[in-house]
C-alpha cells in the first residue's frame, strides 16, 4: 500500500530503502513457510500484474498470451539453472554441450530468460500488432496454447510432459520483492515520463497519439518488450519457487488470474495491479478454510471444494458490473491523495 510514496522516497532517501530492506528482512525471518510462500507468490503475481498492466492496461494491447511468455522465459532460464547431472544423467536432454554442461547463477539466468521472453514477445507482437480487438486477443490466446503444445512435443529439449525438476531453490524474498519493487518503480517512473504517457495515449486514442507524433509501432513494441521481459522473469521466479516446470503450468487459467488482478485493481493503475495481486493471491487462501469444511458450534460443515473459484468468478462479474474501473480506477495510491480525502471528509 505504500507503493507510490514509498517509492518516490526510495529514490530520494536511503532511509526509505533501508526501511523496506528491514521490513523484508524481518518478514523473511519471521514468516512461517506458508505465509512466506504466500508472500513470495504475492510478489511474483505483483511482477506479473504490473507488467501485464503495461500492455493490457496502458497500451490497450489486450494480451492473454503472457503465459506463453512465462513458459518461454521459464524454459530458457531453466535449461541453464538445472544441475548438470539432472540434465545429463537423469533425464538425458538432447541439447548442445554449451547448454547441457553448464549451470549458471540466478542473475544471468534471469536476464537470459527475460531477454528470451522479450524476443518471443516481440516476435509474437510484430504480426499481431496489426490486429485489433478480438483478433489480437485470439492470436495471443493461440500463442499461449501453441507454446504449451510445442513444449510438450519437444521432449528432447524440454523433457515434454515429464517436465523439469531439481531446480535450485533460488527464489527468495530478496529476488522476488527486489524485482517486484523494481518493476513497480519502473512502471511508476515511466508513467511520469514521455514514454509512459505515449503508451497511455496509444491505449486511449491511437489516432490522436499518432497525431501527437508518436510512432505507434515503435511504442507498441516497447510496451510489449518491456512487459514480456518482466513477465518472463516472473515465470522464472515462479519456476524456482515451485521447483518444477511442466508445459501446462502456465495455462490460460494462470493468465486469467493475472488478468483478474488488473481488472479488480483497476486497469491502467500500477498500485491497482499490486492491490489486485494481493487480493487474488490472498483470496483463495483466506477462503480456503470455508471450502475445506469447518466446525461451527459443534456442527461440522462439510467441504465445498471449488467454492473459492466460484466466488472469484462471481466477484469478478460483480466488480465489472458495479465498479468497472476497478478499485483504483486509473489513479495511483498516494499519501497526499489519502490525506486530502481524509481532510475533505473531515471538513464535511
Amino acid at each position, binding site marked *: 500500500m505504500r507503493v507510490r510514496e514509498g517509492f518516490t522516497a526510495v529514490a530520494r532517501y536511503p532511509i526509505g530503502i533501508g526501511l523496506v530492506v528491514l521490513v523484508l528482512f524481518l518478514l523473511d525471518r519471521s514468516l512461517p513457510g506458508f505465509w512466506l510462500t504466500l508472500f513470495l507468490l504475492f510478489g511474483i503475481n505483483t511482477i506479473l500484474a504490473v507488467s501485464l498492466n503495461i500492455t493490457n492496461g496502458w497500451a490497450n494491447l489486450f494480451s492473454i498470451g503472457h503465459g506463453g511468455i512465462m513458459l518461454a522465459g521459464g524454459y530458457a532460464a531453466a535449461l541453464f539453472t538445472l544441475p548438470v547431472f539432472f540434465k545429463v544423467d537423469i533425464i538425458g536432454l538432447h541439447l548442445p554441450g554449451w547448454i547441457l554442461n553448464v549451470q549458471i547463477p540466478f542473475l544471468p539466468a534471469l536476464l537470459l530468460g527475460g531477454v528470451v521472453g522479450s524476443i518471443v514477445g516481440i516476435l509474437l507482437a510484430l504480426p499481431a500488432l496489426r490486429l485489433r480487438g478480438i483478433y489480437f486477443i485470439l492470436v495471443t490466446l493461440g500463442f499461449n496454447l501453441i507454446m504449451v503444445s510445442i513444449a510438450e512435443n519437444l521432449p528432447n529439449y524440454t523433457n515434454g510432459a515429464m517436465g523439469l525438476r531439481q531446480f535450485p531453490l533460488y527464489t527468495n524474498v530478496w529476488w522476488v520483492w527486489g524485482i517486484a519493487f523494481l518493476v513497480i518503480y519502473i512502471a511508476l517512473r515511466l508513467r511520469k*515520463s*514521455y*514514454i509512459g504517457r505515449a503508451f497511455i*495515449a496509444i491505449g486511449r*486514442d491511437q489516432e490522436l497519439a*499518432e*497525431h*501527437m*507524433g508518436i510512432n505507434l509501432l515503435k511504442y507498441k513494441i516497447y510496451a510489449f518488450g518491456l512487459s514480456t521481459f518482466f513477465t518472463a522473469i516472473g515465470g522464472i521466479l515462479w519456476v524456482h519457487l515451485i521447483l518444477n516446470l511442466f508445459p501446462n503450468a502456465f495455462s490460460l487459467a494462470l493468465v486469467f488470474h493475472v488478468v483478474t488482478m488488473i481488472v479488480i485493481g483497476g486497469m*491502467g493503475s500500477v498500485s491497482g495491479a499490486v492491490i489486485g495481486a494481493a487480493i487474488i493471491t490472498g483470496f483463495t487462501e483466506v477462503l480456503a478454510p470455508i471450502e475445506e469444511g469447518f466446525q461451527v458450534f459443534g456442527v461440522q460443515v462439510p467441504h465445498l471444494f471449488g467454492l473459492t473459484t466460484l466466488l472469484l468468478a462471481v466477484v469478478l462479474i460483480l466488480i465489472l458490473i458495479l465498479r468497472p474501473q476497478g478499485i483504483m480506477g486509473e489513479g495511483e495510491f498516494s499519501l497526499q491523495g489519502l490525506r486530502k480525502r481524509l481532510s475533505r471528509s473531515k471538513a464535511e
Partner: protein
Amino acid sequence: MPGDNNQRETGPILKIEGLNKSFGGLQAVLDFSLSLETGELKGLIGPNGAGKTTVFHLITGFHKPNSGRVVFKGINITAQSPNRVTKLGIARTFQKIRMLENIKVIDAMKTAFYLQKPYNVLDVLFQTPKYGREERQLEEKALEFLTFFGIAHLANDLGSDLPYGLQRRVGIARALALSPELLLLDEPTSGLNTVETDELVEIILEIKDKFGLSIILVEHDMRVIMDKGICDSIVVMHQGAVITEGTCEELQEDERVIEAYLGAGVA
C-alpha cells in the same frame, strides 16, 4: 530537422497539388489544390460532405491519397505517416472532440509535449536532476499554455469532465503543444455558444500572431468566417472539389457559393 532530404523549394509553407481520394465508389476529394503562405490564415468552407475533413486527413497522412502531392516547407509529405508529419510541424485538431479518457488536463498537455523528449530513459529511471528539471519545465510550459487559454485552474481536472467549450480549448492547446508551424483547425467552434465562439476566435487570432502560425480553418459557422473576416482568404469546397477561392466579400457575391450552400432548387 528530420524528414526527407528532398530539395527545398522556396515559396509557400504548404502546397497541395491535384489531390484525389475516393472511398469505394465515392469521390471524396477531387483534384484539390491549395497553396498557403507562411503566416496566412486560410478558411476552408463548404456544405456538409464537401470533403473538408478528408483534406485534413490527407495532409496529415491519416488517409493516403490516390494521387496528388502535399508539400510542406518544401518537403514532400505525401502519404507519410501522421507521426512523421506531426514531427515536421503540422498539428491538427479534431472536429469530434478527442479527450484522452480519464486523464487530467495537465497530463494530456504533457503527453502532447511528447515530441520534445528532453531527457532519455536513463534520466527517467535514475531520476537524474535533468529529468526533474525538464519535467518541471514541461509542467510549467503546459501551465503556461493553459493559462493562455484561460483554463489553468482546471489543470488537475479530468479532461473528459470539462464543459464542452473548454474541451475545445484543451484540444487547441494540445495541438499547440506540438510546437507546429502549421495548424489545421477542424471546426473549432462547433458546439459552442455565441460568447464562447467569440472568445475562441480571439484566442485563435492571438496564438496565430504569438506563435507565428500558419492556419487552415475548417468552419461551419459562417459568422466566424464572414462576420469576423478573420481569414486572409477562403477556399470553398463542394462535392470534393474546390469551386472558388477568395475573400469574404468576393464570396458573398459569388453565385456558385450561394448555390452550393442554399442549393439550386429543382425548378
